[in-house]
């Protein structure tokens, strides 16, 4: 075994830093700390790293992206600073987006602008130039917001010269923005995706397709205030410099986290698998190490929690050691996961009748959300404690862009499903799992007749499974809802948005911190900057 391959027992009892959780943020954080010269141990509960970003061969020859399934928000600087290309980083273009309609028609967008405009005109001549205007306006907003994404949020409550300088930066950054751009930003950050999109578009299919990005992972419908923020968040993704573009990493997001693990190990990070941290050891208000589930005690000057805020503050440490208002804030921090996955191994590509034998429509996302009303009605079920009877699906036949995901001629299809509320009224997810899978499959069958005959294997991942397997509380895919009061200065709690905790030497770097969830690495990276700055001070 090479000195850096993952182990099942720690090589030492003492590290400069111990990172709890080998999700992508934990790995990013550890890599930056090790790059700065620290001895770093990542402790991961499962038999593999990656957390919500893993790829597993659940059926012989078929690679499943059990949870997260596409890449866009990863911060580009991380790719370079951690030398990921050398370790196999390879985001593959997904060149098309396909949106089937209930009447059998479809919207198929590809890489050619003019062809797209013609396709949009099929549905609404008005919406063609609206698309250009929309994209330009949103890109301007992205350009404005991106620097906020990539910086530690200012401490709104601090009075130190640094805090005041941070706030002054924010004020001037926003103050320099053109009025329209700032106003668009506020409209997106506070309003609904529906209202924002209605200002541009008239066609249902286009609006349904666009609005879908406003509901991903979040318990909102496109007509709910707050869905604009989710829409903006996803627009901030970039693939090869293009805002809003998505890629499929070679081997799935699990392929990506394996790359990250190799990069982290190359910097000297030690990864300990199948080891759960039971709690963080504190002495005099300072973190001094961790105790594993088997009782092993490991010491370190720095302990970083790369898990969600509920676990960071209420489970890994004693809430009694924390300020009461923080505990209250974390207690009311909304998780309420509402997303699920149904993944398939398929004997061949699904057939969409209007496209005959064509399959090029599957080279990106297939979006089953043909109108905002469809999405909103799917949400209605969730409001009252049940899963959508006609769910929204974000599907991807990933073997189309990365043939290594399935045996030749066969395919894997990942379907992200909403809505699937964590709390079901009058039943539970273990009871509903396969019925829920059937609901999803029936929806697919209605768009792709004969779909069921292609299914070789089906994996249903409920919010409860997400919680059990990954540890994301209530199965919230982002480690906490994307609600305005839970973002930026307030993520995960007012006064604690700068990756520190009230316990000295104890830090947080999971998706429950700024900017938030998605395979982006920003929390891990930004937290490492804070940790290293503090160590230099000490």
């Amino acid at each position: 075994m090479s000195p850096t391959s993952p182990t099942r027992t720690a090589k030492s009892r003492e590290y400069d830093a111990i990172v709890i959780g080998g999700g992508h943020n934990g790995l990013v954080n550890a890599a930056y700390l090790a790059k700065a010269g620290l001895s770093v141990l990542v402790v991961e509960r499962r038999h593999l790293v990656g957390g919500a970003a893993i790829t597993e061969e659940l059926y012989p020859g078929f690679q499943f992206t059990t949870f997260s399934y596409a890449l866009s928000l990863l911060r580009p600087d991380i790719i370079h600073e951690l030398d990921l290309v050398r370790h196999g980083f390879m985001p593959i273009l997904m060149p098309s987006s396909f949106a089937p309609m209930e009447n059998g028609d479809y919207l198929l967008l590809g890489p050619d602008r003019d062809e797209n405009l013609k396709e949009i005109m099929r549905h609404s001549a008005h919406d063609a130039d609206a698309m250009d205007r929309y994209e330009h306006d949103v890109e301007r907003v992205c350009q404005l917001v991106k620097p906020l994404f990539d910086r530690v949020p200012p401490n709104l409550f601090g009075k130190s010269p640094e805090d005041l300088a941070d706030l002054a930066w924010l004020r001037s950054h926003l103050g320099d923005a053109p009025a329209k751009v700032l106003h668009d930003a506020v409209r997106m950050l506070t309003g609904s995706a529906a209202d924002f999109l209605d200002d541009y578009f008239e066609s249902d299919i286009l609006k349904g397709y666009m609005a879908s990005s406003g509901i991903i992972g979040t318990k909102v419908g496109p007509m709910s205030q707050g869905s604009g923020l989710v829409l903006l968040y996803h627009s901030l993704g970039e693939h090869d410099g293009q805002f809003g573009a998505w890629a499929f990493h070679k081997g799935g997001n699990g392929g990506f986290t394996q790359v990250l693990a190799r990069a982290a190990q190359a910097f000297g990070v030690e990864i300990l698998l199948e080891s759960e941290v039971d709690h963080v050891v504190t002495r005099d208000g300072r973190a001094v190490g961790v105790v594993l589930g088997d009782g092993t005690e490991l010491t370190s000057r720095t302990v970083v929690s790369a898990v969600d805020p509920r676990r960071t503050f209420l489970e890994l440490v004693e809430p009694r050691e924390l300020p009461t208002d923080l505990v209250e804030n974390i207690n009311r921090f909304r998780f309420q996961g509402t997303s699920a996955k149904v993944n398939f191994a398929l004997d061949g590509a699904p057939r969409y009748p209007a496209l005959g034998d064509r399959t090029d429509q599957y080279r990106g996302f297939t979006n089953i959300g043909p109108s905002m009303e469809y999405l909103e009605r799917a949400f209605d079920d969730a409001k009252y404690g049940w899963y959508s009877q006609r769910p929204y699906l974000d599907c991807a036949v990933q073997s189309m862009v990365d043939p290594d995901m399935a045996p030749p001629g066969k395919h894997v299809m990942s379907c992200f499903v909403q809505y699937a509320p964590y709390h079901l009224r009058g039943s539970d997810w273990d009871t509903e799992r396969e019925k829920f899978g059937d609901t999803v499959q029936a929806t697919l069958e209605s768009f792709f007749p004969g779909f069921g005959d292609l299914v070789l294997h089906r994996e249903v991942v409920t919010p409860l499974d997400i919680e059990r397997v990954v540890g994301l509380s209530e199965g919230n895919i982002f480690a906490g809802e994307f609600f305005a009061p839970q973002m930026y200065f307030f993520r995960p709690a007012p006064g604690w948005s700068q990756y520190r905790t009230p316990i000295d030497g104890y830090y947080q770097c999971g998706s429950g911190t700024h900017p938030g969830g998605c395979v982006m690495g920003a929390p891990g990276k930004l937290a490492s900057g804070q940790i290293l700055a503090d160590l230099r001070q000490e």
Partner: protein
Amino acid sequence: MIRTTPFHPRLSELSTTGLWSHWAGYLSAQKYDMSAKHEYFGIRNSAGFFDSSPLYKYWVRGRDAERFLAGVLARDVRTCRPGRAQYTIWCDDAGFLLEDGVVFRHSDNEFMLTAAEPNLGYLRDLVGRLDVEVVDVSQEYGVLAVQGPRSREILARLSPDVAALPYFGHAQTKVGAASVTVSRTGFTGDLGYEILVPAADALPVLDAVIEAGTPYGMRPFGEQALLMARIEAGLLLVDVDFSSSRYAWTDHDRVTPVELGLRWMLRGIDDPERPFVGRKALRAEIAGGTSRWATVGIVVDWQDWDRVWTRAGLVPPKDETPLDYESMLYDADGGRVGYATSFMYSPVLQRHIGIARVRPDHGAVGSTVGLEVTVNHQYETVAAQVARLPLFNPERKTA
């Protein structure tokens, strides 16, 4: 009327763009798909096929064929055994490059030479009294390049012999009923093969390849994707990275193999047994250290790139489409030190990269040069590191 290659009837069905260019008098697809980048990922992540038929192809045959080519080509063809191929070049008397191509040795006395430009007259004029015939068979064959990590698996299903071919090896084999030559060559810098097929058999062979490759995600690719792959692979292109000395007006437009980074091809140049065109000049260049240029890779500093564009209020572009113009290179004091002849954003390397010609004292790997870019209609300079070519060189290429 523009000609079409033997594969064209099928390729024209596959084109969804209708974008064709004229290459050596033939229709050649720029891209089949709306996205050249999608085609490019065929090359880098599964497999793709490209119609190389417009290349000129010459049989060079006869008792003196080896002696003849050893005197024409700058790379020593005597080291090329039957069943092997060599990337090669030929120069003029002054040691300037005329062209490059690939020579395939079929037997002791039988070679096939490929070239981008017509060379029959030039070659024949050099035959003299040797027992050699040079025959232009350009139109008699189609050439289908099948490139990418899955290419071996795909072709081995059609012809098991392919699996054992070493890098730059070739073999006579059959695809279906057709006799073909399959070589492990290509212009993508990846694992890949080229199939030389008699024109009459071209379509059935293409169809067999498509049938075998489609389940593996194989797709056709056009010139745009090829040009992306070849820059990453550090493969030089005539009329882009160099021009043929034959048609140059001044020495500014001429380069020697040494200046092009092809010094390795001149191994054995001191062997008195092998006089070849340009040898004397090249030996003098090497002995005197008079090369004017070094050809290197450049990798742009990503932070500097982002800084320059962001400062101008723009979103930093990352465009994989190669530039079709040269970009000047400067030293720290603003002095001109060379120019990039090829430049693009590389999706697999995640950097802006280029092939550049710099003054030899600026060719050290790791040294910094300033690349000129136009931002908001103003010249800006971004830092770039000099790097060894090829910039992308996967193990599978030669493994």
